[in-house]
């Protein structure tokens, strides 16, 4: 029996394996429990059993809250739609929304109580956004039935004030044909963050920066814009022949011929260096939500293609969020204050967990270049677009009409910022499939900036 007793020690191997496995599970529970719990499929969250915290705008307007086990949104449909992409939907399909990215905070998960509390009520934190829901509502109204993206932020404080993307849907009455009806194509996408648009002429800001830095005689040079040039048998055209143009007029009139010639003269290397310095091919994020990259890639491009790339065509792509940050950089002398969207997160007991603050990004534009770009972009507004669009705001801007091919009308852009110290606002607006940028993007930018200027 002694021997049997000794041999029974083999069971300790099993016992040790069991304790080890249990340890692995408990370690996972302690370190990853939050990730495990806050899954979009978790019915405690989706059915609102653990009622989640509120999402509020900068003025305390409730954008989303849990009532009687249901997630409810603003009572006004336009507000619901305008805030959809910032707040997110109930099912978590909008992965850039706060409700998805901050689900751990909203659900109030903690390792001790999981997703429930002794009183059966919410343990979730409330999240206040920097956005102004009435400004977003206005942007949504201005876009109307057109698709596009509108973003406005305070380039001194970093607060994001407006972030609207269309098409959208009503999160409280999700259409049953949302996945089949083509009018909802891209409805889950926050175009400010996730879209990549052909930039068209707004890219001329980049080519201009490269020209400023590389041509010493920039203000004395002129470009002969006779309507078109032919490179490698391929025509680069303008809307009309502008004649002989100085640099600032070439930018204000947005002559493709002039900027294509500049790009070809600078060459692929200098153009790529400038684009990369200004944040193309780099990642930007907004409070942990990643934006799509802007793309500039002329590797292996023919000369005419290099020319087209200089006017924002060819394979160029721009993310509206990156354009907004770039405008913030120019406005701040080259180094942007990075935007943020979470004003603060507070627990049900009133303690603040996080509050947003101004944070400088890395330099995108040289100080001198930024100063000159500002002058030219201001000249664009006063001499070409009309200062009446932004009365009293001293806006510097650039428009773009990006050809997208496929028989579609161009995408119209306007990016810019107000020079005034009491309205330090930068904006980026895209309206898809329009003919004239001033009449589409320009008009949206005008109303949104006028309203934004009144925000305290």
């Amino acid at each position, binding site marked *: *029996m002694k021997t049997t*007793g000794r041999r029974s020690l083999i*069971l300790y191997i099993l016992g040790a394996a*069991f304790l080890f*496995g249990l340890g692995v599970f408990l370690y996972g529970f302690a370190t990853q429990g939050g990730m495990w*719990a806050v899954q979009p499929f978790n019915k405690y969250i989706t059915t609102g059993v653990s009622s989640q915290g509120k999402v509020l705008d900068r003025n305390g307007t409730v954008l989303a809250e849990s009532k009687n086990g249901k997630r409810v949104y603003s009572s006004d449909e336009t507000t619901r739609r305008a805030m959809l992409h910032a707040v997110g939907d109930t099912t978590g399909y909008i992965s850039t929304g706060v409700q998805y990215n901050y689900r751990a905070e909203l659900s109030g998960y*903690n390792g001790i109580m999981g*997703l429930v509390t*002794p*009183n059966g009520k919410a343990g979730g934190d409330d999240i206040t956004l920097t956005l102004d829901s009435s400004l977003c509502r206005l942007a949504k109204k201005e876009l109307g039935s057109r698709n596009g993206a509108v973003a406005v932020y305070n380039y001194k404080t970093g607060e994001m004030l407006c972030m609207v993307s269309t098409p959208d849907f009503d999160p409280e009455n999700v259409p049953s044909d949302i996945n089949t009806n083509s009018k909802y194509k891209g409805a889950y996408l926050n175009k400010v963050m996730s879209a990549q648009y052909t930039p068209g002429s707004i890219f001329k800001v980049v080519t201009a920066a490269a020209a400023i830095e590389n041509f010493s005689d920039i203000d004395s040079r002129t470009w002969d814009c006779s309507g078109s040039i032919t490179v490698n048998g391929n025509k680069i055209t303008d809307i009309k022949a502008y004649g002989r143009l100085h640099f600032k007029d070439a930018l204000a009139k947005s002559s493709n011929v002039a900027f294509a010639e500049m790009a070809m003269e600078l060459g692929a290397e200098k153009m790529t260096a400038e684009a990369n310095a200004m944040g193309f091919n780099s990642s930007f994020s907004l409070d942990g939500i990643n934006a799509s990259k802007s793309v500039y890639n002329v590797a292996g491009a023919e000369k005419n293609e290099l020319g087209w790339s200089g006017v924002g065509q060819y394979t160029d792509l721009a993310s509206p969020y990156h354009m907004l940050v770039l405008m913030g950089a120019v406005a701040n002398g080259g180094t942007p204050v990075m935007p943020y969207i979470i004003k603060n997160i507070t627990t049900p007991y009133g303690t603040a967990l996080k509050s947003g603050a101004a944070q400088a990004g890395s330099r995108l534009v040289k100080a001198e270049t930024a100063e000159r770009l500002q002058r030219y972009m201001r000249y664009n507004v006063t001499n070409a677009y009309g200062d009446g669009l932004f009365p009293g705001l001293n806006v510097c801007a650039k428009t773009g009409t990006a050809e997208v091919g496929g028989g579609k009308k161009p995408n119209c852009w306007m990016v810019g910022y107000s020079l005034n110290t009491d309205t330090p606002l930068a904006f980026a607006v895209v309206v898809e499939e329009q003919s004239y940028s001033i009449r589409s993007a320009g008009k949206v930018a005008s109303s949104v900036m006028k309203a934004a200027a009144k925000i305290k």
Partner: protein
Amino acid sequence: MDFLTIGLGKAVPALLYFLRVLVPVITAVTMCGCFSSLKLGRRKEDPVIVLKNTVTHGIIPVLYWENSIGRSRSCDIVLRDSTVSRDHAVLMRRESGWIVTDTGSKSGTFVNGRKIKSATPVMPGDVITMGSTSLSLSRTADVKGLKLKKPYRRQASSPAALLFSASAVQLMFCVQLCLAGEKASLEPLLPFCAVFVMEWGMYFYSVKLLGRVSFELETVAFLLCGIGVMLIAGTGVKNSYTQLAAMLLGVILFCVMIWFLGDLGRVMRWRIVIGALAVLLFAANLVLGKEHNGSKNWIYLGSVSVQPSEFIKIAFVFVGASTLDRLQTAKNLTGFIAFSAICLGALFLMKDFGTACVFFVTFLIIAFMRSGSLRTIALICAVAVFGAFLILKFKPYVAKRFAVWGHVWDDPGGAGYQQTRVLSYAASGGLFGTGLGKGFLKNVFAGSSDLVFGMICEELGLVLAVVVVLSIAMLMFYARSDVTRSRSTFYSISACAAAGIMLFQTCLNVFGATDVLPMTGVTLPFISLGGSSMVSVWGLLAFIKASDERTYAARRKRK
């Protein structure tokens, strides 16, 4: 009941939460009480009887119920006599008294000068001669100067008190369940009462009627079963009826097996029959079984479905375990290896990979405890390689589960569906759960069987889930620590094998559901929904109970 919910009003959620915190505490205390009482109540390792060398008058204390005698150092009674064989004889205590058996010695064993041919009873005063050594059997009381350990002064917890606290835990579950719905309901009282009647009925039967002194193992089992039944009742009270019926059958099987195991002679005579029945049952399963969820391990008898492999586990332990005299005479494992190969082969044909793993580990435990030799270990390894070969042959079935292992979060909507649900809902429950009957995991396929550990975490909390699995582990540690105190190596080996099966199944179930191991789909002993599994686990518990010497102490006292 309505007045209760109205009267308590908003206090109800807080009250339920308080109960959820209280339950794991009381459960843990009860489990600790049971195991410490088991430990304290054990026989001291004092000599049962003594042997006196007739020439040198040296005294050899006999410590165990079965003792090997020989020249070998591994023997319980070592004789330094070159004329004695390495493994000479075995001295055993049986119901009838002491018995000595020769285990194939060269020179033979003599009792009072007569050479013995079979097991021969020896009385105090009789002289056993092996080689040139003669030993006379004496009672411990007749020998002076023996060092006896002092009996423990501390009183072990009373069995009734432990069972009472188990019932209290079950009552708390019942209260939780009654208040779980939007309207309070009295329906959950039914499963509670059924469990209550069973446990106290069993208590009076075995403690009062049969006069057994210990009831701790049963208390642990009833407490665990109660948790399982109430969890299942939380998915709908009607769902618990089959489980309760199976539990009753299990308790009956437990009692029958305790009686059957009481007589070792009877057990050893029936072993071949039990083994043959097991093989027949497997054959019937293969012929009559219908494919269900990828494996063919069910037989349908009218409206009742049975999983034969669950019962074959018990037969497997019967066939594998053996008394010391047989271990000493028949050292090779050929018969047992052949039987194991048939069982594993049948399970592979049924594509029941999880159960095959359980059988293989049981085989390893029994084979090692029986032989312990390097040769056997080599044999075992050969079998393992053979097993691995078979697994590879069934690759598409097993490989799929291995492919998901560790990558469940890559495909939470598909291959990792069950595990991600388990982890997510387990974490949602926190330390004290979201409340009995209020979970969501029960709606996931196999929620209350394969994924039941997740359900405990979700509805009752992580603390209770850990207490539950640790209790099953404690059963194994208890069975191991009691090995040399049991009445025969048959009991020691069978108890270790049975407890090993329980713990290994716990590992497969818990770690499979939580992605620590690949999912194999075996049940969690005592807890999981499943009639066959419930009946069989009580059968396995009978082996552990039988290995406790005190189980049969009462009968001895009566004589």
